[in-house]
């Protein structure tokens, strides 16, 4: 199983699309590692600098409809090769969410109030997320503040995370 804990990157915008996560011009790469320098290259909003902000981060916290647009699995791959295996959001686009679990990564949905509180409490701080996959909790902490939040993923999604993805699971079962 992959690691789902570490420093958090807060992306305070809804509808971040897969073209912003990894622009199409890099889809000519066959190797996943080649995508690493280009993660979130075309994401533009005040206070976000991809070159400075992504380094050392392992978890993304964001708003609604993350990963909309193109079906490119290069989007989860670009996160993965940067050491980010967990995205926590209010909601996800269908294909992106499925791609994450298909790769043994996690896309965790939390209620809008919880996401709001994460941003208002921890946004702008040096924040760490500890994930207990079996217990279904994330513990978010920064500068003496700590918050433990429960989440649920389906049994099927949990199986994909445990088995490292969909290919072997499908080949064994269908």
């Amino acid at each position, binding site marked *: 199983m992959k690691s789902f804990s570490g420093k958090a990157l807060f992306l305070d915008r*809804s*509808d971040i*699309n897969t*073209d*912003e996560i990894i*622009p*199409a*011009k890099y*889809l*000519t*790469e*066959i190797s*996943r590692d080649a995508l690493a320098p280009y993660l979130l290259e*075309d994401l*533009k909003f005040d206070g976000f600098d991809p070159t400075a902000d992504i380094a050392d981060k392992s978890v993304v916290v964001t708003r*609604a*409809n993350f990963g*909309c*647009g*193109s*079906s*490119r*699995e290069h989007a*989860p791959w670009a996160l993965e090769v940067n050491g980010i295996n967990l995205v926590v959001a209010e*909601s996800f*686009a*269908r*294909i*992106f969410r*499925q*791609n994450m679990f*298909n*790769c043994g990564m996690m896309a965790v949905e939390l209620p809008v109030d919880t996401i709001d509180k994460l941003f208002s409490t921890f946004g702008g701080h040096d924040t760490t997320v500890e994930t207990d996959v079996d217990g279904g909790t994330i513990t978010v902490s920064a500068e003496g503040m700590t918050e433990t939040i429960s989440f649920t993923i*389906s*049994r*099927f999604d949990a*199986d994909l995370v445990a088995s490292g*993805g*969909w*290919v*072997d699971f*499908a*080949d064994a*079962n*269908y």
Partner: protein
Amino acid sequence: MGRTIAQKIFDDHRIGTPDTDVQVIRLDAVFCHEITTPPAIVDLQQRGKDRVFDPARIKVVIDHVSPAKDSKTALQGKILREWARRHGIVDFFDIGANGVCHALFPEKGFVRPGYTVIMGDSHTCTHGAFGAFAAGVGTTDLEVGILKGVCTFKTPETICINITGTLPNGVFAKDVILSVIGRIGVNGATNKVIEFAGPVVDAMDMESRMTLCNMAIEAGGTCGICAPDRISVDYLWPFIKDEYDSPEAALADFSKYLPDPDAAYAQTIDHDVSNLTPMVTFGYKPDNVKPVSEMAGTRVDQVYIGSCTNGRISDLRIAARVLAGKRINNTVRAIVSPATPKVYNQALEEGLIKTFMDTGFCVTNPTCGACLGMSNGVLADGEVCAATTNRNFNGRMGKGGMVHLMSPATAAATAIAGTIANSPLYTR
């Protein structure tokens, strides 16, 4: 309660339910292109599983960057080509026979009412126009589709969008779908299927229905679906005439995929288009939509007519009608990319290509190209394109570029004016 089209298709294809709300369905077709398939092929090889579930059900095209523009895109084509040969995949469309996947595959008769189809391409929802369940997926789902002929989906809920009224002259399917996305938002149909219904859809030809369904994904929809009818049967007849005694018999068979009158929809939206005007996007999201009149006068650098949304023969005919006898403004450059070789040939025979060239358009071979900023018309930083494509995301057609989505009629009128403009086909 009765069943929706998607529920009926799922009921006919379900082979497993690994979890509440998760269904494994059998696939009738798996479509492949050179961007998302090579990583699946390489991964299957590395796993020692370089197999395909059924070469006759796998359809393959090189379309996103064609002809190859550099060594990397040449390698993507090479991997796909060698894989298709190795596995005896007969329906492989290489340079010369290739076109934009979602225009080419319908034209070849590869989609039937009731089919289940996946492809590693988000605009796969286009094929729902034939009464099929067709969904874009990532490379891992595609890989499993290739290997096993199955895919998982959540139990599909359906939004019924009932398009009513009478479409005014000069207002097209593209304007309808832009207005729908503007209304429900880029997240309005996430995890749901959209059934497009009502008298306006019933009167549309297949190409217009494909334009509608093509952009279901821009509202987050898993698939757009139109109910099969006589118009879909007539389109498919050359491909199914050996399977049925008559078009009536085919229609009777396909009618098993009509939605029940009391189908259980998650939501029903009545969308009256009687007063709809030509629409255009203004920001970086497909739900940032305004009437063209409110954007009139906006300067553009490039006009692009093509793509899986609006690169079919009816689109080129409408654009050529607006362009005939005119010249494009000397402040713009304009590109038309017929979506398939058949469309290109028809456009040649009908004199449309000459019209485009006489007005100052560059005519390219069929390819996805500029739509996603990969080739054949990428924008420079700060440039603006009036495009008949489907996405206006920041950087989509090139870093720092802005894309305004619109119909072919509006794009043609914009090419003449040099700024965003309504076409004379719109007479209100």
